[in-house]
């Protein structure tokens, strides 16, 4: 790589960008997404709020969300970071490999939720440990291939390294019996994967559905 120094993303941008990739949410999830302490996340949120980039939402699902100015600032700084690191080519190449894995991941999530028995597609009620183990074994196989993609991303931009930890963590908890960590919880493999997908699209400035 031409640029010997890979940048470390500033904490305020980490929080801003995590909020962009996870949608409206609270400090607990942002802490998981960024690896920062929850109290540090809160203090960054308050500063970002003062700058008019994020806003607190009240009501039945309290949390924080980006303002229009926050979205614009996020795109500008994330793109700036990508270009400064000279990482566009590497991230684009990794994204293309991600896209090969993405339909298989969605197949696997669907197989986790729905199961065809006697030709009838129904909800997987998780009463058959052998079936669940088979699906999780395929998740692990996919995860090994995803790990290679994550490693390429982290080499290009260290902030992507967090996804590897979160994906591995989700799969580990699912394997030890916390089944909600496959598709259901806000820290599930599917949720983290979808956030990585969103992050790649935003970072590269690509539409989700090219026309």
């Amino acid at each position, binding site marked *: 790589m031409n640029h010997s120094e890979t940048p470390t993303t500033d904490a305020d941008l980490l929080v801003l960008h995590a909020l*962009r*990739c*996870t*949608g*409206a*949410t609270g400090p607990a999830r942002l802490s998981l997404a960024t690896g920062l302490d929850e109290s540090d996340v809160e203090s960054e949120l308050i500063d970002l709020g003062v700058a008019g980039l994020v806003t607190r*939402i009240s*009501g*039945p*699902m309290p*949390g924080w*969300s980006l303002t229009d100015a926050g979205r614009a600032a996020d795109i500008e700084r994330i793109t700036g970071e990508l270009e400064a690191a000279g990482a566009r080519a590497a991230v684009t190449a990794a994204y293309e490999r991600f896209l090969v894995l993405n*339909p*298989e991941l*969605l*197949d*696997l*999530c*669907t*197989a986790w*939720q*729905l199961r*065809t*028995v*006697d*030709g*009838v*597609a*129904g*909800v997987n009620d998780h009463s058959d440990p052998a079936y669940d183990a*088979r*699906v999780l*074994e*395929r998740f692990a*196989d*996919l995860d090994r*291939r995803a790990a290679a993609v994550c490693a390429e991303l982290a080499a290009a931009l260290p902030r992507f390294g967090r996804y590897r930890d979160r994906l591995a963590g989700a799969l580990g908890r699912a394997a030890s019996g916390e089944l909600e960590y496959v*598709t*259901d919880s*806000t820290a*599930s493999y*599917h*949720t983290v994967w*979808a*956030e990585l*997908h*969103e992050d790649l699209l935003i970072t590269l400035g690509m539409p*989700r*559905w090219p026309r």
Partner: protein
Amino acid sequence: MAPMRWVRAISARVEETAETLGGKAHGLVLLHRLGLRVPAGFVVTTEACRAFLRDGRRPGGLDEELAAAVADLERSTGRVFGGPRRPLAVSVRSGAGVSMPGMMNTVLNLGLTTEATEGLAAETGDRPFALDARSRFLASFASATGAAEDLAGERRGRPVPDDANRQLEWAVEAVFASWDTPRARTYRTLNGIPHDLGTAVVVQRMVFGNRDARSGTGVAFSRDPNTGENVPYGEVLFGRQGDDVVSGRSATRPLGELAAREPGVWAELLDALRRIEGHYRDACYVEFTFEAGELWILQVRPGRFAGAAAVRLATELVDERVIERREALLRVSPRHLPHVRTPRIAPSERTDLLARGIGACPGVAAGRVATTAEGAVLMARDAPVILVRPETSPDDMHGLAAAAGIVTARGGPASHAAVVARAMGKPAVVGVTGLTVDAGSGSVAVGGRSVGDGTLITIDGTSGEVALGTPRVVADAADDHLHRLLAWADDVSGDHSARDEARRLDAAHAVLRRHPPTDRANR
């Protein structure tokens, strides 16, 4: 001609099994036997695929056999493969026993070299049609083989050969190779399908649903797969090719519109469905194309109904004296029964159907349209909300959490929206073709109609229906059929005590499996 090792012409005389021919070609043989109009073609056997997977290259003699089979096709159609006059174009489709995500599906219009495209333009006097056909070939060939060339001739990846025979060899090889993609392997592992079966490749003369105003394409069930009712059900697209139906690029019309626009095609289609049902003694599914008012059947399989539809179908086939009671009982899995009473929008003339997509999570939800996640959260404080989005992303999660149901324009049963909806247990309809969402003005347009944020709608996550207002919802549409079926089950088991429905059916199955009915041999 010397006997072929790897290739078989598809005709009524072919005797080999679906294991060798693949399910698709096996179905085409059946259509020939029933005297239905099928585009002439041939199949490359699964054995050739297995040889390819073993050796990593096309088996010796295959290319020669392909050329010979094409020569036969040229003779029977009076056309020339890749020729400048009366060009022959073919479709190339994977033909495994089961359709598998990750596998190459179809290359259309193969053989339309630059020269043949000019020939097609001259023959039809319709140059835009010929160029459209060529661009569909390039797109489907590129996605199958990785070769790419846009219409301006600009190249990415390895170039598309401008030789029809080379195109065919590459496409056949691409189908073989697609058997072994990681995604296909994963699918087989999860569904208990052996990895060593291989896929066949079906090559057929093209019929053009985009040929003229009296052409089109569609899919049809002999009965309604949502309810089991004995009425043909499906979709049709006028003036289009089959990939438009499958890709969701174009909004389809209800099958019944064929009756008024192409009465001859409609009558023939009904006759075909009746004949195929007679053979399967079961509901069936076909894919068809009509070109200049002439119907062609491209694919056939049994209907594979589930839930209430399976119960009604099995019971009515007994009423129609098509099958016996014991057979009807065996056709309904006890696993169907929990789904029989899933709430559904009641079929009614008065239901104002706004759109139809793919049911992704069963159940019915009624609520007010919200076109943004933020709007959904706000509106949900007062009353239930249906979140309507082009597609969903993590950015929509709080809206998904707040909504009672979800509708998306894009995506299939494995899309982000579908996975999240099932995780949250919320009814969802995805892939509503032609639906556009304008979050800026807070409106949703589909089928020439437009509704705004706050409009009350009801969605059915089984059938994929999106209706205006609050149509009647039922959970017992198949109750009469179910009661009769379970009474037959009790007669078979001899146990008339009060029990759980699945156990009543299980008990009958246990007896029937010990005494297999003789007529099952025909199935």
